[in-house]
């Protein structure tokens, strides 16, 4: 299926399920529940509630990149059933890793990535907490949830002892949206944390190869190794990598501050005349007193760029070195970048600064936050 077909299919499935749900709700008999297997060995829904004896349609989709199933067991039988499944060994595949066990109530097939299935069953008349679990080998310890069969109120999410740890700090429907779960917090390294330092990760508003640098004065910036230029800078805290560090699902570092500079010109250095966008190549960086000095080439000419905070913590000082330059270099910018520009040589005006071969051996651009 191509992506458009897939989206259409998804849309139709959603529409169908809405129509079906509303139709059945009119009859007052069917509860529809959708649960997805998602990255990081998780169900996106770790609990739901149904009335005793009510008819339930459970739609189970595998949105992860490995096989999963969903097995509903008698109350308290999750671990017992999961252990029986691990004992299947070689026979597991044919049985969808579902053991022939008296405490298995309902089970789905083993779904490969991208597949969807459903279960229709009548909830037990007996009130209780009925676990559901993925019995694929290795998954059951963390990949489970519970079906509350009751007319009464169920525990608050944060106090619910029946769901996997790490799901309690936010609403189940938006687990990943709000807080870094304390479950994943790390002990602090036993050394003084003092900027400058850098960290590479998937960071928003840049290519996947960005470099985030923490400077003194609560200033940070994002320099992109694919495009070879400074993308943006912010004040406040640095990055929150909690989501990335969980592994095994699509995640980005969060920028923990306010962006005060954003490059709007794309590549800022031109050779010979403004508008000559050069071919760039990232060569690496050297730590100079722990500040990275980036090394790249523009049309084959070596450029070194070192960024520091200014003393007042109101902006960045960018020092460029072009040791073997014999060409005119232009530095380009816009008034919408969020900063005022000054330079060690020449006078940046109308969005550009011309630097002769003698001047561009080393020059400094100072970018100061605009006061609002």
């Amino acid at each position: 299926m191509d992506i458009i077909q897939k989206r259409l299919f998804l849309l139709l499935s959603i529409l169908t399920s809405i129509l079906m749900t509303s139709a059945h709700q009119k009859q007052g008999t069917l509860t529809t529940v959708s649960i997805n297997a998602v990255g990081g060995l998780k169900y996106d829904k770790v609990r739901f509630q149904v009335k005793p004896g009510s008819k339930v349609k459970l739609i189970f989709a595998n949105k992860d990149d490995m096989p999963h199933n969903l097995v509903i067991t008698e109350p308290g039988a999750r671990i017992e059933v999961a252990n029986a499944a691990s004992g299947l060994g070689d026979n597991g595949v044919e049985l969808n890793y579902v053991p022939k066990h008296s405490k298995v109530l309902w089970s789905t097939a083993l779904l490969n990535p991208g597949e969807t299935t459903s279960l229709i069953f009548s909830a037990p008349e007996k009130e209780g907490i009925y676990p559901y679990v993925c019995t694929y080998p290795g998954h059951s310890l963390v990949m489970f949830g519970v079906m509350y069969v009751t007319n009464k109120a169920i525990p608050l999410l944060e106090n619910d002892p029946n769901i996997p740890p790490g799901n309690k700090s936010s609403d189940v429907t938006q687990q990943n949206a709000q807080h870094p779960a304390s479950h994943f917090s790390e002990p602090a390294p036993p050394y003084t944390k003092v900027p400058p330092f850098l960290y590479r990760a998937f960071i928003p508003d840049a290519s996947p190869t960005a470099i985030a640098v923490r400077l003194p004065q609560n200033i940070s910036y994002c320099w992109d190794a694919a495009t070879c230029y400074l993308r943006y800078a912010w004040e406040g805290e640095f990055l929150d990598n909690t989501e990335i560090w969980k592994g095994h699902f699509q995640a980005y570092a969060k920028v923990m501050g306010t962006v005060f500079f954003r490059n709007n010109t794309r590549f800022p250095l031109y050779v010979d005349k403004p508008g000559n966008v050069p071919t760039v190549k990232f060569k690496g960086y050297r730590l100079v007193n722990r500040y990275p000095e980036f090394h790249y080439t523009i049309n084959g000419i070596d450029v070194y760029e070192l960024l520091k905070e200014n003393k007042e913590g109101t902006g960045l000082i960018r020092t460029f070195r072009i040791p073997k330059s014999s060409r005119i270099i232009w530095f380009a910018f816009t008034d919408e970048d969020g900063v005022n520009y000054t330079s060690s040589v020449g006078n940046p005006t109308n969005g550009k600064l011309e630097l002769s071969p003698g001047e561009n051996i080393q020059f400094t651009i100072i970018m100061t936050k605009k006061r609002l």
Partner: protein
Amino acid sequence: MRPYIPELLIISLSIFSGCSSDRNNHVAGTSYEIHSISTPDWLTCETGGIDFLPDGRLAACFQRGEVMIYDPETKEWTLFAQGLHDPLGIMVINKSEFLVMQRPELTRVKDTDGDGKADLFETVTDDFGQAGNYHEFNYGPVKDKSGNLFIAISLPSEGGKIMPETRGRMDTNGVSPIQFSVVPYQGWILKITPDGRQIPYAMGFRSQNGLGFDLEENLLVTDNEGDWVGTDKLYHVQEGNFYGHPASLIWKKDWNRGNPYKIPISELDSMRTKAAVLFPHGIMTKSPSQPVCDNTQGKFGPFSGQIFVGEMNSERIIRVMLEKIDGELQGACIPFIDGSGLRKGNNRLAFAPDGSLWVGQTSHGWPGGEGIQRIVFTGKQPMDIYSMNLTTRGFDLTFTQPVDDFAALNPDNYKFQRYYYQYHGKYGSPKMDVQTVAVKDIKIFPDHKKVSLTLDSLKAGYVYQLNVENLKAASGDSLANSFICYTVNKLSK
């Protein structure tokens, strides 16, 4: 709430661990012991790569970006570099220079001022795309004797997404419902020559989390079960070959056939090079990782020249024995260490100069483990299957000790099954055409170590799974591992 970033170390030197003490697993009379290495409390020990300095110190990189050095003498860890992007491989050049495979680049990480900390990070190659998908893992490097480096770029996963901005030329012909390829050279092995040229070397991989050479310098690469990969496997990788996952074909030079998924399966099947050894999924491995050749010349026991392969999702390391049949490598796999205190997550293997095998573990959201362990040969000869070799009539089993003749001559003690795996776009494959195969005749060689089995039938294209029962050594030692699988691609002539 504070962000949890491993911030810079200013004073960082030796970092002592306070967490776990060495938990050594001593079992009296066994051939191998497993020792756990203490790691600093603050370190999330998701091991991406390990290698040894000539002086016996260990260099390791971890998935949250650290490169660290461990001195087994003093049991001290020092931090060499940090902030790298999901590094999944490290190679020692010398005591102040390492190559690290991170997501965006293969990087030379170097201490140029002699203070024991890296200060220069040079791009060795970044001549491949980046789509910004979490499953876009890069593996390697390994080096051949001529100095060529080999790295691997895996396929991203449809379970994830790509970023709005990517690096490299985008081509959506390689999009599929499971693993896909949209920028060069996802699904490839790349070669980098000593003069820095990058050569796209071989294609058709899915998540090839492990590269290594055997003693004859054959490049061996594992791949993980999934779409187009019916079961876990080990490939013998040669230049220009296609190994089965179609997504990567779009980056083949002069590719003019558009969407590779539209090519009939029979044609793809005839284009591909089959694995040298299949690892039956779920029973032999669940997620194989790095192959490493035993070059210890006996320091690690009787398996010199054979290959050990890590296994991520169980407490296991397997052993692989290869032979050339009709000009091609094929062979068998057998568990090596199974439990006995070994953790899960066995991602990286390296032999120390003292001949012990070090294992770096990771989980990273998968069912694995974390930490570093060390496997030491005690000197006691194990009773194990040393090799399984194809003959014209069946297999020769060679044991590490003389066998007890009475048990070895009983045909009921050899349970053979044969089956194959399907080549298709679905995830994995059931075992197909499973049949038991009877042993017709048994002959023991004069050394009492080699047993020749004649089978009722022998057919190419099948895995021959053997469960050995009730067999023991003449010394009385029981067989350490009794389950072995031989992949018959070709018959012996």
